């Protein structure tokens, strides 16, 4: 039925199978849309956020997907600026993943703020000292860049490409893509950093507060590093998942290996700096606030195990796996390493968001707990439904993987 839209020389499943595949993801997206509608209509009382938990599940999701989506700008940087040619075979997938992550995060933020209609006030009444203002500027601009990067791929659709004007436009966009890759890299470095800075500057919250360099707390640099360490791993995971589902090889192995190697080395650098940062925090910020290290790890379920899990289990171990050539060459270990790397980064964002707010600062204040409502889960999980749908549609109708035809000759 839709064979005219499918790229030439590649095999796709039947329209019926594709339709059935999309159904669960449409259901997930619908759940999210219903939740979003309720939150916009009735207000944020639909959530379990409170005056204690001003930030909650949505911010954890936002920060996580923005970190995981960093594969887009970083792979773009490696491909167009550094010139790693083998990554051209995976760059389209990273752009799509980045677009999904950023557009999803922006949409979620639109629901998360109490007055969505006033969202533009951030630009109009901007407080240039606010890290959140910088985040908002950069992610909005970068979403524009990602759209421009995604556009030529959409225009390469078999039918769109037949229109000479569109073909020419797409062709010319390809030529100037390095400029957008550079712009994206610049914007992304800053907003990934500012997301970390958001927590690091909260000097009245000793759990989150970090010292740093000039106006940037150490979390500014750690968030950049952790995002560019996890982003490529997430790209590998998504592409490997696409390969498993389509039962095809889509990307040559050398692209995976390059990304995994870079991911591993960046992760190891990040973990070393994270350990140094934690030690500086334990002996600097914490005693100055009149607290001991253990004061932060005695509330509710948040024990030292969180730190061990984040740094050792989901930090040191995946770094070793991804840095070891023989390990990352085995598909099982590669996927395990990438999965652990991504889990570690999500855990880091969770700790900075939830645990920072859960730990009381006033000595007579009490620890309160938080569990998200179905509406919060709905909006968050809708991002997964939305992502799978966009990726599936792109894969079906656009030439996402340049080597697919070569790796899977149609007989």
């Amino acid at each position, binding site marked *: 039925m839709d064979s005219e839209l499918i790229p030439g020389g590649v095999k796709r499943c039947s329209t019926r199978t594709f339709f059935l595949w999309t159904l669960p993801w449409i259901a997930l997206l619908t759940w999210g849309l219903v939740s979003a509608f309720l939150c916009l209509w009735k207000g944020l009382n639909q959530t379990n956020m409170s005056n204690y938990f001003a930030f909650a599940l949505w911010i954890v999701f936002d920060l996580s997907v923005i970190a995981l989506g960093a594969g887009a700008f970083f792979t773009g940087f490696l491909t167009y600026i550094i010139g790693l040619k083998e990554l051209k075979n995976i760059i389209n997938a990273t752009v799509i993943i980045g677009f999904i992550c950023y557009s999803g995060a922006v949409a979620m933020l639109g629901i998360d703020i*109490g007055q969505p209609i006033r969202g533009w006030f951030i630009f109009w*009444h901007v407080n240039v000292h606010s890290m959140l*203002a910088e985040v908002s500027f950069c992610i909005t601009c970068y979403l524009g860049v990602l759209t421009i990067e995604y556009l030529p791929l959409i225009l390469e659709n078999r039918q769109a490409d037949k229109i000479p004007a569109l073909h020419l436009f797409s062709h010319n966009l390809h030529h100037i893509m390095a400029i957008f890759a550079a712009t994206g890299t610049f914007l992304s470095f800053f907003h990934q950093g500012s997301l970390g800075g958001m927590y690091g500057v*909260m000097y009245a919250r000793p759990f989150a507060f970090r010292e740093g360099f000039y106006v940037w707390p150490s979390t500014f640099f750690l968030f950049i590093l952790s995002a560019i360490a996890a982003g490529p791993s997430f790209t590998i995971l998504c592409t490997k998942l696409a390969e498993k589902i389509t039962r095809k090889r889509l990307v040559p192995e050398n692209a995976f290996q390059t990304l995994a190697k870079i991911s591993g080395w960046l992760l190891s650098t990040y973990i070393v700096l994270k350990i140094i940062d934690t030690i500086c925090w334990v002996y600097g910020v914490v005693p100055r606030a009149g607290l001991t290290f253990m004061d932060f790890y005695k509330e509710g379920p948040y024990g030292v195990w969180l730190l061990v899990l984040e740094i050792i289990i989901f930090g040191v171990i995946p770094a070793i796996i991804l840095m070891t050539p023989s390990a990352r060459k085995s598909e099982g270990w590669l996927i395990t390493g990438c999965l652990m790397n991504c889990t570690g980064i999500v855990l880091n964002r969770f700790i900075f968001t939830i645990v920072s707010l859960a730990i009381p*600062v006033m*000595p*007579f204040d009490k620890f309160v707990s938080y569990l998200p409502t179905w509406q919060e889960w709905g909006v968050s999980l809708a991002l997964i439904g939305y992502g799978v749908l966009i990726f599936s549609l792109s894969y079906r109708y656009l030439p996402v993987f340049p080597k697919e035809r070569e790796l899977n000759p149609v007989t």
Partner: protein
Amino acid sequence: MEEEHGHGNKYGMVIDLDKCTGCGTCMVACAAENNLSVRPDESDKQHSITWMSLYKISNGKKFPDTEYSYFPRPCMHCNHHTPCVSVCPATATKIDFNTGIVSQIYARCIGCRYCMAACPYHARSFNWWDGYFPKGKGLERYLSPEVSPRMRGVVEKCSFCHHRLMRAKTKAYTENRRELEENEYITACAEACPVQAITFGDLNNPEHKVSKLAKSPYAFRLLERLGTEPKVYYLSTKDWVRKFADNYLPGEFKPVTSPKG
């Protein structure tokens, strides 16, 4: 980013915890004065709105040595690199260097709640619901025309009854005065406190009682060592109460054993 107060006013408050009985009149007066919305069920304190909260603390000792004290907690109107002001992306919360008052601009607040995350005192509340003033129960008749009610989805907090400052200034101007007399401008909580535990005035004016009290050896501020420089001071002669105001490593807390003056 932030200029110093210079020679302007620096309004602040001293709360004598030895006098405070925990009656809650300050909370009620604050709520009535500032058009605080209510909920049909106010028992959920994590979602309700209170500009002035009351914390009950105990020395933890068994009878007959048990002692209690109460911490009335308005917005601290922090002076130094105000945690909430510096983080707000839309400049919806500002510090006025002529008065020291940290304001909240409801019509500009986008409801991102970053200020709430940055404030360690929980002095900020979010409007999780539309404003609600039950009709037929008389509450709507108490609404003050001087204070704008807040809409759903914005953050609000204690304003040191800023409208009272405006009122006092207007009166002074009509009388051709540029300076306010002591007690010409005080907050609703200070006015309502039946035991006069709350003293309000200009911390920059050495003649004001509040600035004298703030220099008492028994004076302290909440979480002072974080460096937020609150303009709300507390007084207590009890060491265990003062110890509750901040975090201390073993051996760090210095009891006030022989205060001067």
